[in-house]
Structure formats: structure tokens, C-alpha cells
């Protein structure tokens, strides 16, 4: 849409805004740490199959042995078994190199997290926008449906869904999407409700723009930032939920390299092989911390109340 002369001023203002945001970002160490961890995780995801051959996860023979050959840390356990080959983080309960399995596991978790968050955003934008813009009965109906899903803990609904739909990675993803979307619908609805009052919407109405066009092109463009910040924060939360679900045993296969799945081997060997649960857990903690720091920092930077 051409806005004539003031279009360039708006664009200039946006660019200055962005430059100011980047300036604030440079001063905020925590955001930088979060950015480094998040980008590192994405890089690891992209490169993981080049670093480690994915076939190693199912390689036969699976020796049932727990190796730990780092002489510096000995966990205070006297009967820890050492193996001739060098494993930097020891082996898991199936005799596979734990470090390689963690490298293979990061993409699995991250892929689920991105799928869940992207689907939740899509559902949230479409239905939350509709509820906020249409109001009345549509709003009421959509809100009541979100009420139903918010009255039951996400993990509990996910357990039932996975049991019913079968144990596989896609059903794990669907189960979490089904528990996750109501928050985005509510967030988008409240955003649209506040945007709807603004003069530019009235101007668009006067110009004869249709409802869907106003809502899904103009309002969404202005209302989407809080949702993207929430999405950054939720990447970590989804990974925590996925790993909790696979940790308690709702996993397609015990051999699947997935962080919660790797950690679940550790709970049975917690005092004989502590590394089994510690390292996958630290990986989850780091990834989730990285995305949380990034999301928190971006929110602080874009929150005008905290700016000056």
C-alpha cells in the first residue's frame, strides 16, 4: 500500500527503531549469551548429521555396558567401569557414545519444538484474530473452547492423547500442539482487541477494505510481535515438555536419540552411572535457557516502558 510521502518517513522511523534496538541489544550481555546459545543450537541442528552418522543410533551389536573413562571426574563411585575406547561423556545404557547421541538428539527436540510453536502461532493468529475481531458469539465460542483445554494440565492431556493415538514422533508433536494452542489464541485475541480500537483500522474501514484483509494483513502485522516473543520463550518450554514426556516413557522407541529418552535410561542407573542423566539434562537446560534469555531480552528491548 503506497502512503505517498509519509511512507518513507515511517520506513525511516522503523529503521531507526531497529538500529536503536540493536544498540540496546549490544549493551545487554544476557541477550547476547542467549543469542549465542540459540544460534549454536540451530547450527548444531543443521550440522548434526554431518558430525555424527545417524545410523550409529541403531548400530548393532548393542552392548549393554556403562563406560566412563574420564580419570578427572570419577563421580565418587568406586565400581565405575572403564572401557578401552575413549568416550568423552561416557556411554549410554546401550553402549553408544553419549556425546554422539546428544548431538543426534538436539535436532529431534528442536524440530518438535519448532513444529509445535509454528502450529500454535498459526492456530492462534487465525482463531485468536477471528475471536478478537468478530467478537460476539464467535468470540464466546472460541473462548469457551480454550477454557476446556486450559482446565486440564498440558502434560496430562498429552499423556492421554499419546496413549490413544499411539507412540510415535508425529503423535508426540500433535499431542503437544493440542495442549499448546489455547495460549496463543488468547494472546492474539487480546492483541487484536487493543489494535482494533486504533485509528488506522477506522481509516482502513473508510477506505473500503474488507474484514479479512484488515484483520489478517494489517492488524496481524502490528499485533504479531508479542506473539513472536512468546514463541521464542516457548521453544524452551516445548523442549522441556517433550523431554518430560519421553522421559516418563511415552517414547516411540527406547533407542531413539532424544534428550528426554536418553535421560530416562539414567534414572534406573542414577547412582551407578550419574552421567547418563546429567549430560542430556544439562543439554536441555542450556537450550531452554538460551531461548529464554533471548526471548526475555528481546521483550525488554522492545518494551517501550523499559527503554528510556
Amino acid at each position: 500500500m503506497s502512503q505517498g510521502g509519509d511512507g518513507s518517513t515511517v520506513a525511516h522511523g522503523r529503521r531507526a527503531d531497529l538500529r536503536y534496538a540493536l544498540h540496546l541489544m549490544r549493551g545487554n550481555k544476557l541477550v547476547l549469551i542467549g543469542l549465542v546459545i540459540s544460534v549454536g543450537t540451530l547450527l548444531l541442528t543443521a550440522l548434526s548429521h554431518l558430525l555424527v552418522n545417524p545410523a550409529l543410533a541403531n548400530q548393532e551389536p548393542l552392548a549393554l555396558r556403562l563406560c566412563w573413562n574420564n580419570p578427572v571426574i570419577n563421580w565418587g563411585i568406586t565400581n565405575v567401569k572403564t572401557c578401552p575406547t575413549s568416550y568423552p561423556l561416557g556411554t549410554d545404557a546401550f553402549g553408544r557414545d553419549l556425546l554422539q547421541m546428544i548431538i543426534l538428539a538436539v535436532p529431534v527436540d528442536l524440530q518438535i519444538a519448532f513444529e509445535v510453536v509454528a502450529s500454535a502461532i498459526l492456530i492462534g493468529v487465525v482463531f485468536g484474530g477471528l475471536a478478537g475481531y468478530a467478537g460476539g458469539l464467535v468470540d464466546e465460542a472460541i473462548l469457551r473452547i480454550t477454557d476446556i483445554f486450559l482446565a486440564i494440565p498440558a502434560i496430562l492431556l498429552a499423556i492421554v492423547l499419546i496413549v490413544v493415538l499411539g507412540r510415535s514422533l508425529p503423535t508426540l508433536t500433535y499431542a503437544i500442539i493440542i495442549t499448546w494452542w489455547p495460549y496463543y489464541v488468547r494472546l492474539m485475541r487480546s492483541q487484536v482487541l487493543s489494535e482494533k480500537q486504533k485509528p488506522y483500522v477506522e481509516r482502513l474501514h473508510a477506505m473500503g477494505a474488507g474484514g479479512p484483509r484488515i484483520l489478517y494483513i494489517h492488524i496481524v502485522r502490528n499485533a504479531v510481535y508479542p506473539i513472536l516473543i512468546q514463541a521464542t520463550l516457548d521453544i524452551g518450554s516445548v523442549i522441556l515438555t517433550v523431554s518430560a514426556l519421553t522421559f516418563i516413557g511415552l517414547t516411540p522407541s527406547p533407542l531413539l536419540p532424544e534428550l528426554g529418552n536418553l535421560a530416562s535410561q539414567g534414572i534406573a542407573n542414577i547412582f551407578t552411572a550419574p552421567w547418563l542423566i546429567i549430560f542430556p539434562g544439562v543439554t536441555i537446560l542450556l537450550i531452554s535457557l538460551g531461548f529464554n534469555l533471548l526471548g526475555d531480552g528481546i521483550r525488554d528491548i522492545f518494551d517501550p516502558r523499559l527503554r528510556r
Partner: protein
Amino acid sequence: MLFVLFALSVLIFYLTRGLLPPTSALAPYITPRMDDSAKLSVARAVGVATNSCPSFQAFISLQNGCIVPVWEQYGAWAHNVLTGNWGYSLLPNVAPLTPTWDVFWSRFPYTAELAIAAAVLTVAFGIPLGIISATHNNKWPDHLSRIVSLGGYSVPQFWFGAVLQIIFVLYIRVNGLGLLSTSSAVATNCGICLMNPGTITTYTGAPVVDAILSLNAPYVWDSLLALVLPALTLAITSIGAITRIVRSSMMEALRQDYITLARSKGLSNRIVVYRHALRNAILPAVTVTGLLVSYLMGGVVVVEIVFSWPGVGNASLAAANVLDVNFLELYVLVTAVIIVVTNLIVDIAYGVLDPRIRY
């Protein structure tokens, strides 16, 4: 409120009875010794097979007209459930033909105790940390509480619980200090095995409450010790969330004009912070209480598994593994009732705390 519970019961019923094969609803009632005609009559009595169904084989192969439609099953089920009949349990370690209701409520006090202890820890740590963080902005208490809150909602609960176990057992060796039970000292027939169990009378089923009511001091100590680590593990995420909410709303409140006025009147810092600012800053924390309860009720599943806590969360996973649909339905609906009632109480409390809000 009732609508939410009704809709949720339809949803959970459709998931467990409509999508799972009808035989899974039948499993708690049939024994291997039954012949097919006995199984068929059980299926009719349970209300999943029609009277016109010719044989059990026809029922298993889902022949046309053999399965009662799900909505008709729902009517019969809702009637049973409202009269307190939730069917039999299929859980392992439970005698056959034990009502699901009894199994659930024998385990529920443990879960309730864990969740309440975690809620107490959340309030006891989260609110003070948030206040200190806001009043000492950008000094070390603020940094500490930001680390706690960021770490709290980034840490996987199962990992935190496991690391606490590793630290306390492998390195601090609490069993050597006689603080926790050693494997040789545990009794075999107990919910949470304690070192010097003694005897308590069962009043509520929750060990700490029962021990206090039976005036057995060693048992109180032991059951409290057994509660500390699981409760802390369950609470860690919500401590992070509450700290951060109280911090931001407190900082917002301390910037308001009435705070400047109160300070310029010469009121002491303590009165300004705790009487004027906190009363307004606590409202957002009250709003999330419903979410917090929902979070705790979900979190118990993982925490109970990590700590082998004999509550309903632990049993729900066993129920999921053996497809005990009766138990899953009861668990989901009881949890939903708890959350819905909490939300109602929060709404009422909000009206009391904030006089501007009238319903």
C-alpha cells in the same frame, strides 16, 4: 464452569472410548478363564456390546451393529459416574475387581500433600525473592533472584530431581548421617519407606498430616524429610514464574505516583514497600494461581516418577501403559475439578483484594 467439566468429560470419554478399541473398556472385567459367551455377557453388562451381537468374536472384530455407539455409551457412563461408579481398576499391584474410585483416593492424599508442599514453597520463596529483586534493582539480590527465576523455568524437572538425589546420596551422603533411610532399614510394606516408621493411625492418608494427628514425632520428621526434595523439585519452575511476576509488578508499582507521595510523607521504606506497593503488586500473582495449580497438578506426574512417590501421578503412567481407561478418566476429571474450583476461588478473591473489580 459446569460447561467446562461437561465438555471435558465428553472429550476424555471420546478419546478413551471412541478412539481406543471397545475391548480396552472391557479389560478390567474379564479374566482369562472366561469363555466367549461369558465375555459377551460382560461386554453387554458394561454397555459396549449390543444385545443383538451374535458372538464375542463378532464384537472383537467390530462387526456392524455389535458396538454400542459412543454417544449412547456416554449416557450410561455419565449416569454411572454421577452415582460414584467409576468401574474397576486395571492397575498392576492392585487386586482384581478393585473399584477405581478406591484406588484413586487411596493414592490421592500423597499427591495432594506433595502439591500443597510445593505450593507453600512457591509462595515462601517466590514472593520474597520477587520483592527483594524489585527493591534492590540491579544489585546482587536482584541478580540472584533473576538467576533463580530464569533457571527455574529453564530446568527440566526430572533432571533437577535426579541431580538433587545424586548430590544428597552420592556426595553429601545423607544416609550416612542418618537423615534418610538406607536400603537395609526400609520396611517392605509401606508407601514411603522410612527408617523408623513407628505406627500411625490413618486419618487422611497423607503421611505428614497423619503423623501429626497421631502425635508420632519421629514419623513427622521422617515424612517431612521424605517430602522436601520432591516438593522442591515440583516447586522449582513455579518459584521461577512467581518470582518474575512479583518482580515486574512490584517494579511497576514502585514507579507509581502514590509511592512517591507515600515516601514524601516521610513513611518508612518498610511501610511503603509492604503496605502500599505490595498490596497492588500481589494482584498479578494471584491471577496466575489457577495456572500454578494446573502446573503443579501436571508436574506431579514427572516428579512422582523420579522420586517413586506413591501418588496418583505415578499411577497415571502405569494406567497409561496398561490402558486403564477408568483410572485415566477419573484422574483427568478430578484434576479438572480442582483447577476449575481454584479458578473460581481466584475470581472471588480478586474481587475481595481489588475493590475496583465487581462482578
